């Protein structure tokens, strides 16, 4: 049985329950149609116009409708079965309509005399219509008399309960505001202390103030982390309900953000890296061991960030070199961008210079060794090219090549 609770416009709520209902129990033997508002043979379309109305009425009357969707027990033969649709009160039964349903049983409660109505067979018809109608009119009178006061009483109670709830909420909010204010004060004093590097003074040792201090420190650290993330450092968030963290390391070069790499680290039971998207030629595990990730996570993350930024920088330099200097041929490079062999063309001498750049320090963007090879020995020994040597050691390669082109050393 499904209680269709779509709001029905059946008239004003304080109307007597039964007046608008055409509880016309004249049902014919043949067609078995009850003339009911909204009554429809088809199950799906049947609406219970009174269900919400009755609910309201019942609240007013401080009666609790015990709505039970129960299944009737007495078996019935096949074919159509008329079911009655009841709201059962403690003392009253209100017939609200007839509907085709398979089974219905309303627990009559104390009202045994109304069991008659629960029969599905034609017995229902045999009970005197007069009896039913008189009972229904009795109910109507009762409801009318109880209408006004009970309505107010229960409404008043409802509002009082709401007031209590709102008061409690207000108290909670006030407590929160107070905590927040204390926190702000502590935070500002903490920040000042950090700036002046004074010692922390323990004013009160009460639990509350210690907790507040911790909370203030927590918010300070969170803000620090956020600021770190904004300037292009790494960012940490908690995962797996606090059992792990995910670190995202951003890389940038010359003010341009490049790839972001992520690391998922388990904190319990042991501190170890569970997965990451760092390319295999960056020695993540090696760095973790070197910096003792278990003890000093920050050193490990700083070293890793340095390596990644340097790698991104070298990669970006290579990309810019290829874009800006198409006349320079890249003879060799590798995935780690730790070695670069370029071929320069010298304009007047019509010779080629082979330049090897070694980036053996993988945490830096600049080469550790620059070497020129040329057929003309004098060229590589000349002052000009010694200057170029130092230029390539100290400036990023794409900028160095631009400078060398401007000076006319290479084409």
């Amino acid at each position, binding site marked *: 049985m499904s209680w269709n609770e779509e709001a029905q416009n059946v008239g004003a709520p304080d109307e007597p329950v039964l007046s608008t209902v055409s509880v016309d129990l004249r049902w014919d033997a043949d067609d078995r149609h009850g003339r009911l508002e909204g009554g429809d043979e088809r199950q799906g379309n049947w609406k219970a116009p009174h269900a919400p109305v009755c609910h309201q009425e019942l609240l007013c009357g401080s009666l609790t409708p015990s709505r039970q969707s129960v299944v009737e027990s007495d078996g019935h033969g096949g074919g159509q079965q008329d079911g009655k649709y009841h709201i059962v009160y403690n003392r009253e039964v209100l017939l609200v309509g007839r509907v085709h349903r398979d089974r219905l049983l309303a627990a009559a409660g104390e009202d045994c005399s109304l069991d008659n109505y629960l029969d599905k067979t034609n017995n229902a018809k045999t009970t005197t219509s007069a009896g039913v109608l008189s009972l229904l009119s009795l109910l109507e009178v009762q409801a009318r008399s109880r209408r006004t006061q009970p309505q107010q009483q229960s409404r008043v109670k409802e509002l009082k309960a709401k007031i209590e709830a709102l008061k409690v909420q207000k108290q909670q909010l006030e407590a929160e505001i107070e905590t927040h204010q204390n926190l702000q004060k502590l935070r500002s004093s903490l920040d000042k202390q950090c700036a002046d590097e004074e010692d922390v003074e323990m004013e009160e040792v009460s639990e509350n103030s210690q907790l507040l201090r911790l909370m203030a420190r927590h918010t300070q650290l969170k803000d620090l982390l956020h600021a770190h993330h904004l300037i292009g450092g790494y960012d940490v968030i908690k995962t797996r309900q606090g059992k792990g963290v995910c670190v995202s390391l951003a890389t940038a070069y010359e003010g341009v953000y490049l790839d972001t790499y992520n690391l998922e680290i388990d904190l319990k039971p042991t501190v170890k890296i569970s997965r990451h998207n760092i390319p*295999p030629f960056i020695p993540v595990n090696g760095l973790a061991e070197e910096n003792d990730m278990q003890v000093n996570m920050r050193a490990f993350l700083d070293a890793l960030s340095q390596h990644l930024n340097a790698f991104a920088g070298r990669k970006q330099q290579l990309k810019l070199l290829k874009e800006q200097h198409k006349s320079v041929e890249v003879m060799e490079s590798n*995935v780690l961008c730790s070695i670069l062999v370029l071929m320069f063309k010298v304009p007047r001498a019509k010779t080629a210079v082979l330049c090897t750049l070694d980036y053996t320090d993988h945490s830096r963007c600049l080469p550790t060794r620059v070497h020129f090879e040329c057929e003309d020995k004098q060229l590589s020994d000349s002052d000009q090219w010694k200057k170029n040597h130092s230029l390539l050691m100290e400036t990023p390669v794409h900028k160095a090549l631009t400078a060398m082109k401007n000076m006319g050393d290479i084409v």
Partner: protein
Amino acid sequence: MDDSARRLLQRIMRRIPAQMLKPTLDKWGRLTAAQRQSMDFTESKWALTEKLLAICEENEMTVKHITELEMIHVIENPDHCMWYALQLMDPEEDVHSVELTQFKEQFKSHLRELIRHVSIKIKKHTDEAVWIRIAWGDSFSRPNHLKPTYVVHHLQTPYVFVTSLTSKLKPLLSQALVLSTRYQAIKDASLSGRKLTAIRDLLMRQYQQVFPTKYPSPLAENDQNASNILINKEQAELAASRHQKACEAFGDGMLPQLQSAVYKLETKFRDHTNKTMTEREEAFRCVVKFASTNLLESLRHCASSGIASTPGTSLLSSIPLKGRNYFVITDNSPGPSSQTRQPSN
């Protein structure tokens, strides 16, 4: 041009599909312009093969030149044979300074020390991959070019991909690789598949991985033609969280096209309703194989559409996490354990 060269050329011509013939020959670059003109690519393959044989005779090409053609074809289309992944272990100090010429020389010299008659060809592809073609002979016979082994390695990474390698020759290749790349050991990575790009992308993590972030991306535009807007409203958040979890486990966007995953179970039979089987002492051996045109994509779809509950089982999400598709599960270890697997020919 001797007989073996002729047979090799015929075999290569059979393998190259008709529409790839012209570009491959152009890339090979061993035919003169006139010879290229004389090849009429609308003829049947058999006729073209004959023509090409004649041209090669004319140019006095040897097996060496013809293997170049084969290598070009294989580099372009590596998906016709089974590739197996190997992993190099325990790097030495100078592993990062290995550069191409050094690697080439070392590899050739080491392999030639181990086996006398062997033909090695090394070529560096544009994407920094080093391709090696090895034709094996033994002490008595010349290298057999009809069954070459191809090896792909990216310098500075510990991964090597091989195809068509018999178990007899595997130790020789392993030793040469280990010595020339400055590592100390090599092991089987338990990953195999037909598509080289797929297994390479999986191992080197070249697909889009998803991590938990503070700022998840906004929901995609709702499909306005959806059947029921109310259902969408209710389900949108759930669907988004399922999708996020599925992407965290398997990845986002285009996933590497793995075709199969094999789980070899060596666990005890457990089923309360079947006493006879449960009472047996020894492990119940069975092999479970998942096969699909794109296995990771279908697993991700299972998780994101709600067919499988998230977070998914770690057995399935281990495939992208550990980069393997062969697992042996025993009772002692809670998760999938590693096991060596011999790549069969």
